[in-house]
Structure formats: C-alpha cells, structure tokens
C-alpha cells in the first residue's frame, strides 16, 4: 500500500525538510501534497484522498488547531491519522491537541523520530516498511 501524505506548514523550508525525511524514511509513498495553511489544507482534503496528515500549528489564515477541529468534525476525515509537527511547548495547547486524537513530533526533530511516529500512526507493518525478509536456506550441510 502506498500512502498519500499531505504536509501543511507555512514554511516552505520546513515542508521540504518533512518531505525529504518522508522520502528517506522508506515509507511506501504515493502522492505527497503540500499546503501553506489550514484553509489550503482543507481544500486539498476536499479534492484528494489523503492517508496521513503532517500538520504545523502556528500558521497564518487558519492555524493547525482549527484545521484539526474541522477535520474531526467532518465524517469523511474524522478518522484521518494526523501528526502535528510543531515547536509548540505549551502543555495546555498540547493537551488540547492530544484530545483531538493526534500524535505530536516536536521541532527540531530527528528524522528517525518522525519516521517511527509515522510507522506507529499508520500501522505500517514491518513487511510493508522493510520489504519481505529473505530467510536463509539452512537445509544444506555445514
């Protein structure tokens, strides 16, 4: 299965960093879509099938928390796996985000942290992630 991923962040640099990490992660990727704020992100979700959303919080026009609330109140997207990628350090705000059913990766992040969170959130199996494991034939004589 290939995952369609939407990356929503007002920083073009951070979007590129996230996409680069996705490509290096080995996750079976389909289409990678990008949006610069929550409103743009919602428009993308209306038109495209997305399996995973990576979402910033502090953005102009519509912030990530508002986008997440709208996603959870829409039947078609309420179960969408969401990972918030943010500098957010307020426990008050983080608790509100957790209550909306998302995982949180704190910036700055190590690539393996993002990769491991994606695996956990998407439920990608080892076989899907690493490919089939070749088992050595041990029937021969030593």
């Amino acid at each position, binding site marked *: 299965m290939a995952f369609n991923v939407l990356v929503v962040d007002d*920083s073009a640099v951070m979007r590129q960093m996230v996409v680069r990490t996705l490509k290096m992660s080995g996750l079976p990727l389909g289409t990678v879509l990008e949006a610069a704020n929550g409103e743009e992100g919602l428009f993308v979700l209306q038109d495209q099938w997305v399996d995973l959303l990576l979402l910033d919080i502090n953005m102009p026009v519509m912030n990530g928390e508002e986008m997440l609330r709208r996603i959870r109140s829409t039947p078609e997207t309420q179960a969408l796996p969401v990972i918030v990628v943010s500098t957010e350090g*307020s426990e*008050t705000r983080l608790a509100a985000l957790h209550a909306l059913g998302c995982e949180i990766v704190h910036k700055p992040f*190590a690539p393996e942290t993002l990769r491991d969170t994606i695996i956990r959130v998407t439920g990608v199996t080892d076989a899907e992630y690493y490919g089939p494991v070749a088992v050595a034939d041990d029937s021969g004589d030593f």
Partner: protein
Amino acid sequence: MPSTMDLSLSRTTAATFEELALLFPEQELSPEQEDAPLDVTVSVDFRGPFTGRLVLSASAVILPTITSNMLGDAGSRQPTLQRDALGELANVICGNLLPAIAGAEAVFHLSAPRMHDVGESVSRQADSASARAVFGVEEGRVSSTLYVFGAAPALTTVA
C-alpha cells in the same frame, strides 16, 4: 554572570542549530569568526503572557551550509531558500525558548519569520535587548537576541 534568560536563549539557540542545521555553535569565537559580518537578519514576533521579538542574525557566508544541511544540496544556492532556512531556525528557537522562560502552561502565538534589510532597525525605539547569545559557526557567526516589550516576565528556573 549571565542571566537566566541569557542561559535559556544560549541553550535553545545552540540546540536548534545542532539538531535542525547539524552545525555545532562554538562559544569561543576565532578572530575570523569575530570579524565576520552579521549581514542577514530575520525576526519572529510573539504574543502571549508577554510580547516581544526574537531576532536572529547570521553571516551570509554560512547560509549555504545551513541550507544544505537542512534541505540537501539542491536548495543550498538559492538565496530565497537560504533566508527561509534562517527564518525557520528563528521560528524554532523562539518556539522552544518561550516555554523555557514562561513555563510549560503558557500559550504563545508566533508570527511568521520576517526578513530585515541591511541597516534596518530590529527593535522598537525604546527597547533594549533582554537577552543575547553569540556563537561562532563554521567561518562566520550567529547572534540571537530576545526583546521583551513592556514588563519583564517572571522567570522559570533553568535546570
């Protein structure tokens, strides 16, 4: 003796450069680093329990390395991406610094990073810096400065 705010700013700036840009800021500057101009400046405004601005300046000579480490070689020669990369560093420094100063319960709203022209003032007329940290990075240097507008915040303890 550095203040609590100076220590928080210094630690946050160094950690962000290490983790996001894969560079290791040095507190002892070489003569070459001391002489390097701070010719690119970005700032991030914030509001919450207190308001202010985080200003990050860097020598232009180190921007290609920063950008390359963050994005790969493809973008490292594009001036727009170089400035955006510095802006993202400022954003991450600011986002991590404020909870260290104001406590984990405080909620802040950060503006998008803003570029400043050479010679443009980065502070309001009556503001003095609340904290400042300077590091040597590669063959240049970086300076991060925190301005708090109005009353100074009550500080949390830095571990």
